[in-house]
C-alpha cells in the first residue's frame, strides 16, 4: 500500500516537472522575441519620454498643492477684513456708529480691489525702479495663469496677484480704527484711494517687488526682513493711523464723555476670526505649501498666544483684573509683531516676540496714549504701529538661518547668529516706512481736507455715522 502511494506521488512530480519546463520554456522564448524587436534608440527615446512625463507630473502635483494652499490663504486673509476686522472695530465703537465703522472696512474690500485691477497691482509688483513699480501690469496685463518665478515659481501669477490684493485691502482698513466715529464716508473713500496708490503700493514694491530697495529675497540695497508685512502692512497703517488721529482731532466730547465699546462680544468674535485668518496671512506668505509655511504657521500661533498672556498679565498686575478685551487685544498685538518674523524664527523665539509685544502694546495703549492725549479711537497705532515696529526690529534679532536661509545656507541671518548688520537694516526699513507714512499721509490728509473736508459736521457726529452717512441704524429697537 505504501509503495503504491509513493509511486503515484513520484508520477505526479514527473508530470508537474515536465509541464513546468514546457511552460517556462515558452515564456523564455516569448521574452527573447520581445527584447529583440525595438532598437536601442527607441528604448532610449521611451525612457526620455517617461522622464519628461514624470517631471511634468511632479510639477503639476506641486502646483496643485501650492496653489490649493495659496487660494485658501487668500480667502483667509479676506476673512480677516470682513468679517474679522469689521467685527473687531465694530464692537469697540458706540452703537450709533457700528454700521459706519463696519462699512469703512467693507468699502476697502470693494474699492481697493477695483484699484488693484486698474493700476495699484502694477505699481506694487510690476517692473519698475527701487521705489515703485511701473504701469506694465496696469489693467492686469500680463498677469495670467503662468507662474512668475521672480515671485513664486509654483503658483499661477494670478494666484499671487489675488493673494497680495487681500493684503492691500486690510492695510488701509486697519487705519479706520484711528479716525472712527468722525470721518465723512465720501472723504474716507478719496483718502483711501490716494493712500493705496501713494503709500501702500510703493511700500509693498520696496519690500516685496522686483528690484525693490528693501527686498531681502531679491538683493535689495538695504535687505530688510519682512516675511508677511510687518513694515508694509502694520507700520504703514499704524503710523498713518496716528497721523490721521492727530490731524482730525478728537471726537466730540473726548475724553470727558464716556465712550466705552458697545459690544465686546462682537470684538471678541472679530479677534478670533483675525487669529484664524492670520494663518493665511503669515503661513501663506511662504507662497507655497512646504516646510516654510509650517514654521510660519507655528510661529504665528505661538506669538499670538504669548502676547495674549503678556497683555493679560500686565493688566492683571496694574488693574487687578484680566479683561476679555485685554486678552483679545493682546492676541492681535502678538499677531502683528510676529508678522515680519514668522518664517524666520523658531517657535520659542516666537513666544518671546509675542510676550514682548503683549506687554509693550498694553503700555502704549494704556500709558503712552494718555500721556500725549491723542484720540486714536480704537488703538490702531498702539497695536499696529507699535507692534509692527517692535516686531520688525525683533525680527532682526531672532531671524534664524536654519528656519529660512534667505542669505544662503549657513549664513548668519539675525543678530543672535552674529549678523548685527541685519538689525541696522531692520531699523532702516522701519525708518523708511515711518517716513513715507508720516509725510505721505499728511499730504493726502491736507489735500482732502482742503478740497472736501474730512470730518462730519458736529450734528452728524452726535447723530452717529450710521444715520448721518448711511441713512440706517445697526440696531432697530422699535421692531
Amino acid at each position: 500500500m505504501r509503495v503504491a502511494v509513493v509511486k503515484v506521488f513520484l508520477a505526479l512530480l514527473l508530470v508537474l516537472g515536465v509541464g513546468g519546463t514546457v511552460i517556462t520554456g515558452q515564456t523564455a522564448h516569448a521574452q527573447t522575441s520581445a527584447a529583440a524587436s525595438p532598437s536601442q534608440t527607441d528604448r532610449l527615446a521611451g525612457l526620455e519620454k517617461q522622464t519628461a512625463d514624470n517631471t511634468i507630473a511632479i510639477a503639476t502635483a506641486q502646483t496643485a498643492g501650492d496653489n490649493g494652499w495659496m487660494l485658501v490663504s487668500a480667502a483667509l486673509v479676506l476673512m480677516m477684513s470682513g468679517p474679522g476686522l469689521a467685527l473687531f472695530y465694530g464692537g469697540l465703537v458706540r452703537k450709533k456708529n457700528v454700521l459706519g465703522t463696519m462699512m469703512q472696512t467693507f468699502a476697502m474690500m470693494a474699492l481697493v480691489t477695483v484699484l488693484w485691477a486698474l493700476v495699484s497691482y502694477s505699481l506694487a509688483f510690476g517692473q519698475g525702479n527701487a521705489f515703485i513699480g511701473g504701469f506694465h501690469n496696469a489693467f492686469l496685463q500680463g498677469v495670467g495663469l503662468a507662474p512668475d518665478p521672480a515671485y513664486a515659481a509654483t503658483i499661477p501669477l494670478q494666484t499671487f496677484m489675488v493673494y497680495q490684493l487681500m493684503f492691500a485691502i486690510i492695510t488701509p482698513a486697519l487705519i479706520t480704527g484711528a479716525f472712527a466715529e468722525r470721518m465723512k464716508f465720501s472723504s474716507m473713500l478719496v483718502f483711501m484711494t490716494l493712500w493705496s496708490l501713494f503709500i501702500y503700493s510703493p511700500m509693498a514694491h520696496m519690500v516685496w517687488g522686483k528690484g525693490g530697495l528693501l527686498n531681502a529675497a531679491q538683493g535689495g540695497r538695504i535687505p530688510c526682513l519682512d516675511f508677511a508685512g510687518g513694515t508694509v502692512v502694520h507700520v504703514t497703517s499704524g503710523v498713518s493711523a496716528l497721523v490721521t488721529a492727530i490731524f482730525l482731532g478728537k471726537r466730540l466730547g473726548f475724553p470727558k464723555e464716556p465712550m466705552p465699546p458697545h459690544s465686546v462680544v462682537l470684538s471678541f468674535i472679530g479677534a478670533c476670526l483675525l487669529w484664524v485668518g492670520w494663518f493665511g496671512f503669515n503661513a501663506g506668505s511662504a507662497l507655497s505649501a512646504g516646510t516654510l509655511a509650517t514654521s510660519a504657521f507655528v510661529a504665528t500661533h505661538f506669538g499670538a498666544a504669548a502676547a495674549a498672556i503678556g497683555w493679560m498679565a500686565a493688566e492683571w498686575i496694574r488693574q487687578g483684573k484680566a479683561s476679555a478685551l485685554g486678552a483679545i487685544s493682546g492676541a492681535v498685538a502678538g499677531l502683528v509683531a510676529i508678522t515680519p518674523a514668522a518664517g524666520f524664527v523658531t517657535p520659542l523665539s516666537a513666544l518671546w516676540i509675542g510676550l514682548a509685544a503683549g506687554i509693550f502694546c498694553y503700555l502704549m495703549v494704556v500709558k503712552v496714549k494718555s500721556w500725549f492725549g491723542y484720540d486714536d479711537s480704537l488703538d490702531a497705532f498702539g497695536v499696529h504701529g507699535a507692534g509692527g515696529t517692535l516686531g520688525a526690529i525683533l525680527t532682526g534679532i531672532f531671524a534664524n538661518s536654519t528656519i529660512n536661509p534667505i542669505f544662503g545656507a549657513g549664513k548668519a541671518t539675525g543678530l543672535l547668529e552674529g549678523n548685527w548688520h541685519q538689525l541696522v537694516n531692520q531699523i532702516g526699513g522701519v525708518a523708511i516706512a515711518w517716513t513715507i507714512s508720516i509725510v505721505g499721509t499728511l499730504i493726502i490728509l491736507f489735500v482732502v481736507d482742503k478740497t472736501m473736508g474730512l470730518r462730519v459736521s458736529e450734528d452728524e457726529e452726535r447723530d452717529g455715522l450710521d444715520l448721518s452717512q448711511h441713512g440706517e441704524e445697526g440696531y432697530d429697537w422699535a421692531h
Partner: protein
Amino acid sequence: MQKIEAVIQPSKLDAVKDALVEIGVDGMTILEARGHGRQKGHTEVYRGREYSVDLLPKVKLEIVVTDEMVDGAVNAIISAARTGTIGDGKIFISKIDEAIRIRNDERGEIAL
C-alpha cells in the same frame, strides 16, 4: 384699584412673576429699565480707560390690582425679590381712577 410699580433685580423677575401668578394676579407689564437708588454704580475698565456706570440694569414691573389684593401682591413681590443686599429695588403704590379693556369697552375692576 391700585397700581403697584416695583423696580427689581433682573435676576429676580421669574421668581416675582411666579409669586404674583400664584396669588391670582392675571396681567402684568414688564419694562427693561436702568437706574439706581442708594446702590450707586460700579467701574468698568476698557483698555485702561475707566468708565463709571451708575445706571444699572433693572426690571420695572407694573401691575394694577383691586384694593383687596394690594397687600398680598406687595408681600409676594417682597418675599420673591429680596436678597437682603443693597440694590434689591423699591415698590411704589398709587391709586388708579379707571381701567378700560380696549377689546369690549369694559370698565372698572372687571377690566383688570
